């Protein structure tokens, strides 16, 4: 039985390419909703303990580097721009531009992870890693007034810091892996203006990971920084 010619990427249980694209997007969005709830649980835990142990959380936050955190935020925002431009290139059928933007995105993601690793190393050196080696002797600088804080409460802050940024970093690693694979496939000509859905959906994933960091940065790094 013959059927009319269509893009080989169009599967037969879809009416047309647009419907298939919408279905794929919806599927990715439903997954992203589960990611929102996943990180949302940790944000809720953070919120409850920050309200209860504000001084210790502020003291912990003041030990983080705003410069590095803000730089990482900028790196992720720029990477979201390169992702959008990669999708735009895919839609226009510009293969090399697409591969270029995907490669830059991966590089920016690795930059983010490098800076994060540098921050983590500093935490190790200062014994701010929760566990048997944890020591916290810093105080909460409240407008010049030094308020001592309970070490266990500070350890709770750092537990949440490592859990949330660590889980976020894991998602970044997955995202970098995804885009690396897509860059190779794009180089081999798998995507065309008629079909570039994987690029678009991986982009949705990346944007959500960016949004999560957009919330993580002020909540973790910017508690009580004024004087």
């Amino acid at each position, binding site marked *: 039985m013959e059927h009319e010619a269509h893009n080989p990427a169009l599967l037969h249980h879809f009416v047309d390419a647009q419907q298939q694209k919408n279905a794929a997007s*919806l599927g990715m969005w439903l997954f992203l*909703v589960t990611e929102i709830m996943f990180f949302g649980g940790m944000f809720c835990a953070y919120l409850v303990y920050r309200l209860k142990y504000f001084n210790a959380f502020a003291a912990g936050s003041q030990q983080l580097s705003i410069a590095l955190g803000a730089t990482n935020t900028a790196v992720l925002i720029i990477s979201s721009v390169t992702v959008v431009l990669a999708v735009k290139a895919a839609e226009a059928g510009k293969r090399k531009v697409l591969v270029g933007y995907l490669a830059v995105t991966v590089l920016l993601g690795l930059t983010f992870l490098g800076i994060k690793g540098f921050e983590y190393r500093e935490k190790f050196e200062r014994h701010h890693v929760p566990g048997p080696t944890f020591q916290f002797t810093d105080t909460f600088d409240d407008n010049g007034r030094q308020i001592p804080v309970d070490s266990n409460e500070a350890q709770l802050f750092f537990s949440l810091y490592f859990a949330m940024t660590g889980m976020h970093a894991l998602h970044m690693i997955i995202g970098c892996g995804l885009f690396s694979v897509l860059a190779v496939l794009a180089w081999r000509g798998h995507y065309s203006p008629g079909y570039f859905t994987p690029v678009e959906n991986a982009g949705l994933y990346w944007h959500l990971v960016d949004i999560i960091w957009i919330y993580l940065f002020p909540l973790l790094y910017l508690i009580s920084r004024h004087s």
Partner: protein
Amino acid sequence: MSEHEEHTTHSQGFYIAIGVGLLIGTATTVGAAFVNLGPFNPVVALLIATIKAIVVVLFFMHVKDASEKLAGAVVLSGFFFLAILISLSLADYLTRSWR
């Protein structure tokens, strides 16, 4: 050809402008953190973060130009359930007497 063809492409300059806006929002958040706004410091920070998130969802994730309005409803539902999680948890914790 489907009647629901969508064109998700704005110009390159449009997306870069949005990116610059997001960077300005980040700088504003950092700057505001150093100003003593009392209890409103976290409010301002989260407000700016929420605006940035909305901008990313609408424009970078193409929700605004989507041909399928269901996608927007799914996004909203995700944040709705998050709001339930946080508000009901806080309703418990904030109404306990701790000390």
